[in-house]
């Protein structure tokens, strides 16, 4: 599903050069639930961003669904993100000026084939899946952290992507809430066969996934 070959990422500023990722080779198969662990600053988010086509590697190649992404132009790249990938971020990244429903509709807004009423239907269904159908008219600031993360999950799944990339989805939540979120993800993986890559700091969460990849200082250690 996702193939990373010899990925290297260097961040250059005027004064410093940071090697954030060093020779990463990773294959994620269809329907797999993979977790990534590692100390802070080891390059987990960077890796996820590269898988999610939000960032370009300095060296190396990416294949998603057997398509080599490296040469894609912005338009194709964006369409790919839109169709295939759902993102969940540690800090939710909801748009505070949009209602819960409008936040969830967002990915569909960039899909020209989806009509306004279809958007509404799909977003409502996604919110039902995460148990938030009674908060659709609320704004993100009126929700708890766990509720916000569930909105973010609904947004990630509304377009029915084949891959979900989650960067510490439970990092800001207490263990009960974290558990709930984890259950939703496990459910998605089991029932819809969604491929999930999740960054986590929590060994217990990582144990519940199919496979664990450990990073240290930009390199894969396990």
């Amino acid at each position: 599903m996702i193939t990373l070959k010899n990925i290297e990422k260097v961040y250059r500023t005027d004064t410093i050069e940071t090697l954030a990722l060093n020779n990463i080779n990773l294959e994620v198969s269809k329907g797999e639930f993979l977790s990534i662990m590692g100390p802070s600053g080891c390059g987990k988010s960077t890796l996820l961003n590269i898988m999610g086509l939000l960032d370009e590697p300095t060296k190396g190649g990416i294949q998603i669904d057997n398509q080599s992404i490296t040469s894609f132009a912005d338009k194709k790249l964006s369409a790919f993100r839109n169709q295939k990938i759902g993102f969940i971020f540690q800090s939710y990244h909801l748009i505070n000026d949009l209602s819960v429903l409008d936040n969830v509709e967002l990915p569909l807004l960039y899909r020209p084939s989806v009509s306004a009423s279809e958007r509404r239907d799909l977003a409502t269904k996604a919110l039902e899946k995460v148990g938030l159908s009674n908060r659709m008219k609320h704004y993100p600031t009126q929700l708890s952290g766990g509720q916000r993360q569930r909105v973010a999950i609904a947004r990630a799944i509304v377009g029915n992507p084949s891959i979900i990339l989650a960067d510490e989805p439970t990092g800001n939540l207490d263990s009960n809430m974290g558990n709930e979120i984890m259950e939703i993800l496990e459910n998605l993986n089991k029932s819809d066969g969604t491929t999930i890559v999740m960054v986590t700091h929590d060994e217990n969460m990582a144990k519940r996934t199919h496979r664990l990849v450990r990073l240290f200082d930009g390199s894969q250690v396990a």
Partner: protein
Amino acid sequence: MIQHLFKLIWKRRKSNFLIMLEIFVAFIILFAVASLSTYLVRNYNQPSGINIDNVWTVYVNYNSLSDSLNRQNGELLEQKLKTFKEIKAYTFGHETFPYGNSHSQGDVGAKGKPSVNCSFVSIDENAPSVLGLELAQGEWFKNTDTVGRVTPVVITQYMKEKIFGDENPIGQFLGTENRQKVVGVLANFKQFSDFDELSGTLISPFRDAKTSFMARVDPSVSAEFEAQFAKSLRQINKDWNIEILHTSDMKADKNSMYTIPLTIVFIVCGFLIVNVVLGLFGVLFQNIARRRNEIGVRRAMGATQSHILSHFIGEMLVLATFAIGLGLFFAIQFPLLNVFDIENSTYLLGILVAVVVIYSLVIICAWLPSRQASTLHPAIALHEE
């Protein structure tokens, strides 16, 4: 998509209100200046109907209150004028000459017809040859016509239309006592400046003592001739005051009463617009800096660069449309209520100019910040909290 923009704008109505207000004010200023300019340019483009090339206006004062003495002086003056071959034509009149400082005004109508405010000019039969006047209809009066109780008069086309409409005015009478008979119609007579609007002028034969006059001189005359001419007029009688003015200078003076304030208005308006543009620019850059996170989210959700670009420009266009809508509501009152007696099309052109300029300015102002927003790297935009 447009609904999405409306929702965002409505949610941010507080901060958007200022932007809208700014655009609204700019619109009103532009509308006012554009309408004024349109009005003046249109007036300017109307032919003046008066040719003042090589024409002098000569103010003469005999410093005498005796009418019989003045009449004698008039004859002396005219005899002298006839001796200069450089003076091609001359016409005596009251001092209400074109581009001069004296005016006389009043309402004139005809029995059973509307009356119209018009200027009065009194000048003799030679006026057409000095001022190059061309009649649209009828003919100019002769000095010999002025006998009896009925005075022949020439009016402007504007006045004819106001009073007589489509009727033939020639031979019709003006005034309550039917003392003035229309003999000719002038297409135009812009006697105050090039920026006059079409107006009513009633020209009647000059019958008083000959004093001040306008003269058409040979194009070849020099400054020496002018000095010599003035000197020889003064020599007739030491008590006379003679002032020779080039009519084109007088007209230029009158025109500058419009062009100077207009230039100032343009400069002030230019400054205001530049201010508004810079203000908008600043606010937009700030807005987009504050919304980097949102931009990152949108990009992650599949928005292309051009989606982001059109999103931000779209927001500004929606705001501009609201502001313009509000501005139009006020602007449209001017033609509706006929606030100033100006053609509606002048306001409409003013509105059109203001709308086009505002939209262009907004697009220009929104372009750079929006462009910057669209090229923002999604990973970097999301990285910041």
